């Protein structure tokens, strides 16, 4: 049984249809990356999984238990198993609490009174490679990279089975970004964590994710193992995203595929394939609505898919 099973999740904020049916599964110990442009609905997906955003339709099963629309009472014990790492590392830490009390707050919320909180703080700081005296510091005294690691420590406090990480490396310098990714990879191996990672940085995805899903306008348009998607992207949107990745080499010969225009408004979803108006490979057939089809573990929503080796 999958650890997390999201099925046909739909969310609207008033007339704005943010998620138009998102389905994916995450196995125990697996890292799944959700990739897409701003406004594609990535953050809404993981907030809906954590019960922090509404989802009007669909199902979210964690360990076989339905959690969409569950009461706070049902969710609270589950929050031991599902931890969230928020996007803004400093903003997600209360400025008035010390790092020590921030990372042990989950124990207090879960009513674990028998724990020695000072010892736990020390253990957690050590786990994320921060010195023990950081427990008495305040968030404003931390650098961005250190604040991230505090976010990781807090997420790990209750030994969750699943971590939801929203842009875990955004705003970090490259030299520090590697440290955080190494830490996440290491913890995942040691603790057997499953993760859902949201990012628009494809260079990061390649090194942490086992499988990935590409989102466009609140739907998955392609899904597969990270290797398969990087080596053989079938959806034109995926191809565009991959080609838009500037390489740190002035002589890199880029076969860049220009994406036309900007993402359409969610209030006026295009007919047929919703990517059609921006797609450099659009054909006549694309006025029909593509269905989600899975071939050998590789999911795709496209009527005119690209094939391996096809000149882009």
């Amino acid at each position, binding site marked *: 049984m999958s650890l997390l099973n999201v099925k046909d999740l739909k969310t609207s904020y008033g007339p704005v249809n943010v998620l138009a049916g998102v389905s994916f599964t995450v196995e125990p110990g697996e890292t799944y990356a959700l990739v897409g442009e701003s406004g594609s609905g990535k953050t809404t997906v993981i907030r809906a999984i954590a019960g922090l955003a509404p989802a009007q339709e669909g199902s979210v099963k964690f360990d076989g238990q339905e959690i969409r629309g569950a009461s706070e009472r049902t969710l609270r014990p589950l929050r031991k198993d599902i931890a969230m790492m928020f996007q803004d590392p400093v903003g997600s830490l209360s400025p008035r609490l010390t790092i020590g009390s921030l990372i042990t707050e989950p124990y207090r919320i879960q009513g674990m009174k028998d724990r020695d909180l000072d010892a736990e703080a020390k253990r957690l700081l050590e786990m994320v490679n921060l010195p023990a005296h950081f427990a008495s510091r305040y968030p404003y005294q931390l*650098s961005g990279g250190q604040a991230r690691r505090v976010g990781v420590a807090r997420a790990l406090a209750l030994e969750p089975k699943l971590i939801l990480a929203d842009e875990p490396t955004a705003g970090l*310098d490259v030299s520090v970004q590697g*440290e955080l990714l190494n830490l996440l990879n290491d913890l995942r191996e040691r603790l057997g964590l499953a993760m859902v990672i949201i990012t628009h940085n494809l260079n990061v995805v390649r090194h942490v994710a086992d499988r990935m899903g590409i989102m466009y306008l609140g739907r998955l348009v392609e899904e597969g193992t990270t290797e398969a998607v990087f080596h053989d992207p079938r959806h034109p949107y995926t191809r565009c995203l991959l080609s838009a990745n*500037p390489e740190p080499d*002035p002589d890199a010969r880029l076969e860049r595929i220009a994406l036309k225009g900007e993402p359409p408004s969610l209030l006026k979803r295009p007919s047929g394939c919703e990517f059609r108006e921006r797609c450099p490979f659009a054909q006549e057939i694309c006025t029909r609505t593509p269905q989600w089809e899975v071939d050998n573990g590789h999911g795709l929503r496209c009527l005119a898919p690209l094939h391996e080796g096809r000149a882009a």
Partner: protein
Amino acid sequence: MSDTLLEIDRLSVDYETARGDLKALRDISFDVRKGEIVGIVGESGCGKSTLISSILRLTAPNTRFRQGEVRFKGEDLLQLPERKMRNLRGADISIVFQDPMQTHNPVLSIGQQMLDIQHRSKTSKPEKRTRAAKMLGAVGIPDPEARLDQFPHEFSGGMRQRIAIAMALMSEPDLLIADEPTTALDATLEVQIIERLQELQQEFDCAILFISHHLGVIAELCDRVVVMYAGAVVESGEVREIFHDPKHPYTRRLIDCDPGHIKERARVLPTIPGEVPDLANLPGGCIFRDRCDQAMARCASEVPPLAQLKEGHHAACWLNHKEAAE
């Protein structure tokens, strides 16, 4: 020398703080030629922002210029009276800031803001409006005439950044400073902005000082690169020299760290352990010594000078000392 537009010459800038002087920039030298794109790379705390605000002289009250000159067309901007400096800002030197969501006034239409910044021009209002529409068209905003009446919130982030570029180029400046203009944008939009900047640079023939920590963007856009670390220039040279033959350990390791370089899935990604030193309490010797894996005895005692290794390629590292042309 006549084609040199901007010369930063041995510039040192401190911030006076309660803890003592924070040495934000130390002995910075580099130049920007006419029509050239120069990239400045460096991580948080390397002094990029202090450098930009020093060029524009938009510095915080506790800023102290300790030594050096900022020459623009041969004239030292640090000595210029404020009135002349005001005439220069936005006319000869303009800037595009990092956050496109906050650079526009939310309660004025884009058209109004684009008219306002033409206050120096003697042309009539309809002429200014036509020019504004033309500039919006030049940065690829469809249907520019109609969109002039819209407000900032009606544009996406990528469009707002392009509008900011249009506004910065309106006065046809000789120098455009772009401070991390793509950091807040998605990769697809980032590419659009870079390509647009390249086209516009050709069209308007202005020089661009492009500040970024994104090595991929720098590699793609810039002719020359200046690498900064903890308030000092550690290396500068042509973009190919910097990326293919870096002469400073910091440059080399920064490039190694970029995951864009690593094509196959890596279990452990390279990092640069350690932290940037405290600028209020600088250690002696080389600034990068504590994090450098090739540090020698000499690095602890003497600050390596920014030495020319070959025409146009400078590095501040004792490792190059034998080949340095001194």
